[in-house]
């Protein structure tokens, strides 16, 4: 990263992940004005120390109180927080936008760790519907099973379930990687737009239905292909990537990835190839 104090305005903006390019046509991108760099502030984030560890018992707290406590602990610099007795409560650990080690000693209900951007989460239990929905970055590991809509609309990061998941895993996925150690239900990868889904077990009917882009790898049986989803040959790059990813995810240690089925979109979006890479996001 360039030195932000001495860099040119344009370099400075680009170093902070922004850009000043001019796009033609419709776009949903918003541009950062380098003149306002001093005012740039990522609301709701905290500088934390991973070595500073604490426990939080949420047995008698509702989700709003529990999430408020997590914020409070992060504001005090705690970088490793262990949540005790989550007992299937909904919406725990949502909206965390900074680095954090977050460990749940138990199971989560719906919308657990949704809209996160950066934390590393481990759930020593099960999660309900829509776990990690809209996740931007970070890593989430579920030790047991997960409900439907696992990783709905994630933009980035790694989402790993060591057990089986329900229907519509990776629905509307826009980036990142979802890895499932067990089986997955119907409509996996429904309307998928980017990213990768890896399923070591079997998958249900309508796999990849209406997918625009992205890649799905399946280790077991496929119930049926959805509209627009087709099989594609595995390449050496696919195999290398899968081996590396599974190793990092600590899952499927002896799994023969070369025998997996690769599934991609069989149709191209209208005018998709004619668009600039940055415009493709706007198109979908």
């Amino acid at each position, binding site marked *: 990263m360039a030195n932000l104090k001495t860099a040119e305005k344009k370099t400075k903006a680009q170093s902070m992940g922004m850009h000043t390019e001019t796009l033609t046509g419709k776009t949903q991108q918003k541009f950062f004005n380098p003149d306002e760099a001093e005012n740039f502030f990522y609301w709701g984030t905290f500088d934390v120390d991973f070595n500073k560890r604490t426990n939080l018992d949420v047995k008698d707290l509702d989700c709003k109180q529990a999430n408020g406590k997590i914020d409070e602990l992060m504001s005090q610099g705690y970088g490793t927080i262990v949540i005790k007795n989550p*007992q299937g409560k909904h919406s725990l650990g949502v909206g965390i936008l900074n680095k954090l080690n977050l460990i749940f000693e*138990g199971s989560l*209900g*719906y919308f657990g760790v949704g809209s996160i951007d950066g934390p590393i989460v481990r759930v020593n239990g*099960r999660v*309900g519907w829509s776990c990690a929905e809209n996740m931007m970055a970070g890593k989430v590991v579920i030790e047991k*099973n997960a409900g*439907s809509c696992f990783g709905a609309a994630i933009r980035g990061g790694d989402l790993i379930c060591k057990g089986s998941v329900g229907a519509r895993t990776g629905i509307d996925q826009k980036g990142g990687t979802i890895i499932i150690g067990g089986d997955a*239900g119907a409509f996996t990868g429904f309307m998928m737009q980017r990213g990768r889904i890896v399923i070591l077990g079997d998958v249900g009917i309508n796999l990849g239905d209406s997918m625009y882009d992205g890649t799905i790898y399946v280790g077991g049986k496929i119930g049926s292909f959805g509209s627009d989803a087709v099989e594609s040959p595995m390449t050496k790059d696919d195999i290398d990537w899968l081996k590396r990813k599974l190793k990092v995810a600590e899952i499927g240690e002896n799994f023969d990835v070369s025998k997996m089925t690769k599934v991609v979109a069989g149709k191209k979006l209208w005018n998709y190839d004619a668009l600039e890479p940055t415009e493709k996001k706007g198109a979908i």
Partner: protein
Amino acid sequence: MCGIAGLIHRGKSSNVGEELQHMLQALKHRGPDSTGYALYANNDGQNFILRFKVGENVGEGSTSVNEDESVYNERKKIVDKKLSELGALVVKEEKLTPYSYRYEIKFDKDLMDFSKSVESIPSVEILSIGKSLELIKDLGDATVVSERYGLNKVQGTHGIGHARMATESGVDIKSAHPFWGYPFADVSVVHNGQLTNYWNNRRVLENKGMRFMSECDSELIAVFLAEKMRNGATLEEGMKESLTGLDGVFTYFVATKDSLGMAKDTMAAKPLVLYESDDLVAMGSEEIAIRSILPQEIDTYDPFDGEVKVWQT
């Protein structure tokens, strides 16, 4: 959206009334309008338990009306006369609310004819008939209904329940779940979802002599299964046929005297979390329902699309 919950103890009885109350209360946010219980109690099995109502408890959007208690009392007298004419001997009677009763009766003839005859009395509806089934439903959350009917002391083997958010019909008892599997003793159904071929199925089933008491789409499941069973299908066979016979999105539970079943539509559009051990099966729309009776860490899972399961006591 509605919340459903069910549990079955295998090889033993428990305080199912209280357990189901906790499970349904945990799902209150999914359906605050009315709550219903179908409890399979440790009755002596000698007599039929007849639960019926002679009027309504009316909330928003209902097509029914609240009436004076004197009207209900008059209707009750007509029911008593009808039971006598049908040869049913009332062994015990309890007035539970101004509009609902629980009778223990001795009766050994055809239940369909019996039900048709009793329900020919205007505004009278049989909520359930069975040797162990105790079907209770009313407006309010799980705790309110349980306290009103004294359910937390009911001992039994299994039960299903429903917290209703009224969407397809008004807030009243006739549209509340569970639905009795008329005319079969001890059969009840709860449903979360929406059925889109309700009227087509209803017309066909009515032509076959089946009866509908409400405009609630969920009642179709009970009638659909009852019609299949009337024609010789087992409960599980009927449930499997429902996956294609019913259109829409659904997760439903059905219970009989000694079994509990679940079915999930082929799109798996409605939630269900399931806990299964050697001596207990507990399931609900959300895990918090199960946690309300099993706070310790347990393994649960979501059944897949098009799945049908049946457990015995």
